[in-house]
């Protein structure tokens, strides 16, 4: 029996060339819906560079595939991508659950620290695990010279979206998170300055269904995009309790203040919030909720001449 082959949509030119983003996994998610019982192969060979959003999306996709197929194979390209996935703990989590063409033992021997990694791919299931995750990343940030204000922004972003993922998710595999710092701007071109990317994916019921539990939001939950836009507002929560539903709004403000963005994906909706504007579009269905936050670090200002 031949294996079902799942393709990616990796850009071949432009600023996003070769990058494994969440969007690049769309054809594979579409193909995964039809998988039932057989074996399946995911071909990552066009990938040159993996960002946290792509990594968390890949983890969610593999969980989805492992739950519905007999055997999952992953074709991983040349040494750099394999070495990066190894450093991000990808093989620790998936090495024994999928078949790959990579000799993990050889990679482990040559393992080196990655100065930009703030949080390797981590799988968690409950709110109780979050303070430990935050303590660890805060210590790494402090050791790398991040200011208190920057640390607070990164940690508060991560803690709020982690809490959302495990609180509303009812996800069979919990949630995956990863955080990476770059020496350049990754999102939308490679400008001056640095950027920290935070990504989280869960396999839960999604934002629209969570908000639908609150009957007062009936008019905001007709489409996934409406539900996502509504979820960004202060105080919007599925439970209707006062004081709840502030986390995502605060994360949006943190990202906007840093000059970055907050992207949400759930169901067939995708919304990106920039502070002064919000973009929405329809995308292939994502089985869960996905959050990506871009926090640029400003380049040091050049002295006035």
């Amino acid at each position, binding site marked *: 029996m031949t294996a079902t082959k799942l393709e990616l949509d990796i850009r071949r030119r432009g600023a996003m060339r070769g990058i494994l983003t969440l969007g690049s996994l769309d054809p594979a998610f579409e193909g995964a819906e039809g998988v039932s019982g057989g074996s399946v192969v995911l071909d990552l060979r066009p990938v040159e560079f993996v960002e946290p959003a792509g990594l968390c999306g890949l983890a969610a996709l593999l969980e989805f595939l492992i739950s519905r197929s007999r055997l999952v194979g992953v074709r991983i390209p040349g040494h750099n991508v394999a070495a990066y996935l190894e450093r991000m703990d990808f093989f620790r989590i998936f090495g024994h659950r999928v078949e790959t063409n990579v000799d993990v033992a050889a990679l482990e021997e040559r393992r080196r620290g990655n100065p930009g990694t703030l949080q390797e791919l981590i799988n968690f299931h409950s*709110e*109780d695990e*979050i*303070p430990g995750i*935050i*303590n660890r990343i*805060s210590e790494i940030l402090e050791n790398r010279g991040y200011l*208190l*204000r920057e*640390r*607070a922004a990164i*940690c*508060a972003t991560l*803690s*709020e979206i982690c*809490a959302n993922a495990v609180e509303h998710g009812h996800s069979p595999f919990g949630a995956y998170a990863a955080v990476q710092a770059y020496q350049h701007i990754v999102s939308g071109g490679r400008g001056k300055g640095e950027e920290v990317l935070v990504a989280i994916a869960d396999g839960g019921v999604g934002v629209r269904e969570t908000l639908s539990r609150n009957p007062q939001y009936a008019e905001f939950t007709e489409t996934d995009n409406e539900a996502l836009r509504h979820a960004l507002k*202060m*105080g919007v929560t599925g439970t209707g309790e*006062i*004081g*709840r539903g*502030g*986390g995502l709004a*605060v994360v949006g403000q943190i990202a906007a203040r840093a000059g970055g963005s907050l992207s949400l994906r759930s169901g067939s909706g995708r919304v990106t919030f920039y502070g002064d504007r919000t973009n929405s579009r329809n995308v292939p269905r994502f089985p869960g909720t996905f959050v990506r936050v871009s926090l640029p670090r400003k380049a040091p200002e050049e002295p006035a001449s």
Partner: protein
Amino acid sequence: MADQRPYAVYDVASGEAGGKLMVTRGTGRRVREALAEVLEGLPVGGVLYVDTRGVELMDYSFADEAVGVLVSRVASGEYGDRRVALVEEDRELLENVEASLRQRSLAMVRVDEVGASPGIVGDVPEHLVETLRAIYEAGSITNADLAAKLGLNHTAMNNRATRLVKLGLIHRTKNTAAPGGRQYSYEGIA
């Protein structure tokens, strides 16, 4: 005032449930329970100072669960005539406390340190700000004197002050020995 009323200070950073990085509702709940225990142990009229100066980070979920919920319960009278105030400098950490209290249409008194001049975090309706300021400037003032000072009739004055008492921002005492019968007087909580 702080030096006249019984009070206790709870240092969140060194408290048993606390620390420097305060995140999640679960952590907030544990800190709130510790705060509530101290508050309940205070004599009537007492003030609990929640000192967050050693905390480096509070996310919204923690701030709402630890501070927002506690202030809401104090305002609803759950702890009788006992109040809470925040000891914190004017810094970014306050933003999530502010956001939680605004979301709940509540406010609390903030001081840089115990005994310092008070400020407000959260949502106080515009028309009550003037009343609040006048009471804190006076230290202690009767309803009649406050009404005269602000140019309001006694009933309107009483209504405004009652709102502030309910928000947990001032104390009210009944003075039965006042000329002309019973009269309320007000004072700040910190």
